[in-house]
């Protein structure tokens, strides 16, 4: 009696209603159970996956660093995830306009191509990104930044360096080992592979630093040792650096930098998948597709230089954008004061009035905006503005000096006072 089953007018209607209600409830258990099982799976699987730390023979920090140094991985490919949380306000599109502003100043015109490696670097300074890396020997490397429905790749094959931006269908080309700094600089300046990260961190390891082996972990399905690097000095914003090193190959697989202030990692870069087989040869072949706009590397030399500069301190490099190159030009070589973790870079921009509000209208607006992001501080040195992130702080004094470093605000003010 399907269509009429609970017609209510039948004598047994009421009893049937109750039975139907129960039946309905019983059937709704199915979707609820499916949701429950799915939620449990989503919640529990990562918990189980992370629980088993591998059992590896004990090893000293010295041996582990040697292992990294000896590591000779020639052929590999993998996917890595980089999360950067510098605590910068979310600048959205402004970030890239600042970047392009800084870059185009060198050439005096909008010489930038969307495929220029420089225009992509600032993107890595915030948020989470997925990179794919492939390498086959010394001459063939490829790094791709996975974007939504697009990809940005830097491909090096011998002395040819190509960068291809599929979203805008533009390519960037540089030739020769000496000339390719534009593209090759990408992995060097802004360490993008765990290996580069590790090398940079270990350089800093001296009497100011404690280096220990901190147990083991599973990274990208491989057994790894964890190397823990901690500053012994106070006054730095760096809390600890942890590097997971593949037990077999010695390749650093994961790099985590936690700030002294606690909370989430500032930089967390690690492989999510890695393979040590030779990548397909076609991976490194690139011929620009027909109709692709190709920018030659030489056209962008100035731009690349400007970028190299900015990329070292992605956190506050933007702050210098309004000053223009002529002001940062000769006689303003950055000096370093302090040692170890507390080194502070001092840059004399020579421009009075620190935050120039007198420059051209667009730059002035940008400067005003940046000023609103910082805190005003006063000290023996006079007064200035402190821009802080979770890792790098920078003090821009009103007489045009910039102090920056991975140190606390107080340490910056102290350095400025001492420099007076």
């Amino acid at each position, binding site marked *: *009696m*399907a*269509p009429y*089953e*609970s017609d209510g007018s039948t004598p047994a209607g009421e009893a049937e209603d109750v039975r*139907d209600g129960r*039946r*309905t409830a019983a*059937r*709704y258990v*199915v*979707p609820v159970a*499916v*949701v429950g099982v*799915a939620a449990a799976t989503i919640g529990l699987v990562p918990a189980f996956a992370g629980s088993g730390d591998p059992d590896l023979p004990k090893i000293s920090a010295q041996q582990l660093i040697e292992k990294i140094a000896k590591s000779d991985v020639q052929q590999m490919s993998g*996917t890595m995830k980089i999360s950067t949380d510098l605590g910068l306000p*979310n600048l959205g599109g402004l970030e890239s306009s600042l970047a392009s502003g800084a870059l185009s100043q060198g050439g005096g015109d909008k010489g930038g191509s*969307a495929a220029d490696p420089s225009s992509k670097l600032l993107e890595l300074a915030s948020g989470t990104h*997925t990179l*794919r890396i492939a390498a086959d020997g010394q001459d063939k490397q490829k790094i*791709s930044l*996975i974007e*939504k*429905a*697009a*990809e940005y*790749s830097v*491909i090096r094959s011998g002395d040819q360096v*190509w960068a*291809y*931006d*599929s*979203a*805008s*269908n*533009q390519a960037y080309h540089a030739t020769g080992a000496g000339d390719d700094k534009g593209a090759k600089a990408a992995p060097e300046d802004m360490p993008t592979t765990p290996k580069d990260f590790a090398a940079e961190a270990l350089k800093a390891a001296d009497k100011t630093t404690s280096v220990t082996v901190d147990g083991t972990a599973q990274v990208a399905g491989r057994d790894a040792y964890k190397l823990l690097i901690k500053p012994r000095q106070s006054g730095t914003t760096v809390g600890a650096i942890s590097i997971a090193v593949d037990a077999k190959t010695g390749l650093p697989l994961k790099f985590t930098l936690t700030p002294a202030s606690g909370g989430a990692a500032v930089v967390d870069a690690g492989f999510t998948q890695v393979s040590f087989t030779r990548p*397909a040869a*076609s*991976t490194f*072949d*690139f*011929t*620009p*597709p*027909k*109709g*692709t*706009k190709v920018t030659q590397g030489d056209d962008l030399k100035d731009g690349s230089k400007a970028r190299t500069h900015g990329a070292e301190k992605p956190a506050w490099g933007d702050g210098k954008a309004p000053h223009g190159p002529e002001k940062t030009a000769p006689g303003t070589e950055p000096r370093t004061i302090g040692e170890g973790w507390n080194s502070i870079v001092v840059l004399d921009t020579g421009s009075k009035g620190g935050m120039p509000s007198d420059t051209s209208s667009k730059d002035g607006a940008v400067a005003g905006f940046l000023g609103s992001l910082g805190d005003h501080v006063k000290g023996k040195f006079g007064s200035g503005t402190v821009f802080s992130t979770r890792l790098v702080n920078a003090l821009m004094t009103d007489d045009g000096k910039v102090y920056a470093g991975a140190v606390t605000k107080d340490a910056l003010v102290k350095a400025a006072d001492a420099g007076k």
Partner: protein
Amino acid sequence: MSQAEWAGPGRIPGARRQSPLWAFGLLRSELVTTLRRWRTLALLAVLAAVPILVGIAVKMETGDGSGSGGRGGDGGPAFIAQITNNGLFLVFTALAVTLPFFLPMAVGVIAGDAIAGEANSGTLRYLLVAPAGRTRLLLVKYATTMAFCLIATLVVAVSALAMGALLFPLGGLTTISGTRISLADGLGRALLIALVVAASLIGLAALGLFVSTLTNSGIAAMATTVGLVITVQILDQIPQLHALQPYVFPHYWLSFADLMRDPVYWDDLVRNLGLQALYAAVFGSAAWARFTTKDVTA
């Protein structure tokens, strides 16, 4: 609970043995009925028109075929910069353009109409008199909706391919990773992408079917489903809800573009298909719970 109880008085002994074939016949008649409706044909015509419009627009803007590379990185839908060099990219652009709205709208109309439309026009009770059982009728309705997802996607893809071949050159293409693949490989990937796009819609189809079992008004069910699609896509854009976003059904829709990477980046594709399967299971079973116990008065 055996569904025989629900099959109504029309059930005859032995019907169960013939039923697979019978269900197939039901499915075929459902498909034919659905596809013959003017409404369905109009929807498909709109879907076929989108790639034609995109193709003509790109052709007119670029004129003699000089590259459109001047467009910035994030101006316009995915892959649009490559269309002038290779017509095959029109397929990907057209799917990227239709996937956020046109395709879900069409699927929402068909899914929302599936049960509620029958109830609205008073034909549902006749369908239930037939010895198929409610569960099977629901499965047939869902299969029809999924078939429509596939047909709609293929209509877009084929129309885009025809338009692309007509207006732009075809040939070997460059993947978004910068490697080159042959035209045959590219066509294979285009077909795979069309299938993935169709599969991206099955979660929505189940959702629409569930909404359709809740009401007796076909219009209400369609409007609710399409409204849900829009609402959920807006929620997917709000940064404050990022913890929730991986679980809303359109979140990984654009992951079909990952098939154009070389090697293919499977993570998001697998997540998308898993999410669609989850939605299909949850709302499919909810639709079943509702439909097998509800009073059918129309």
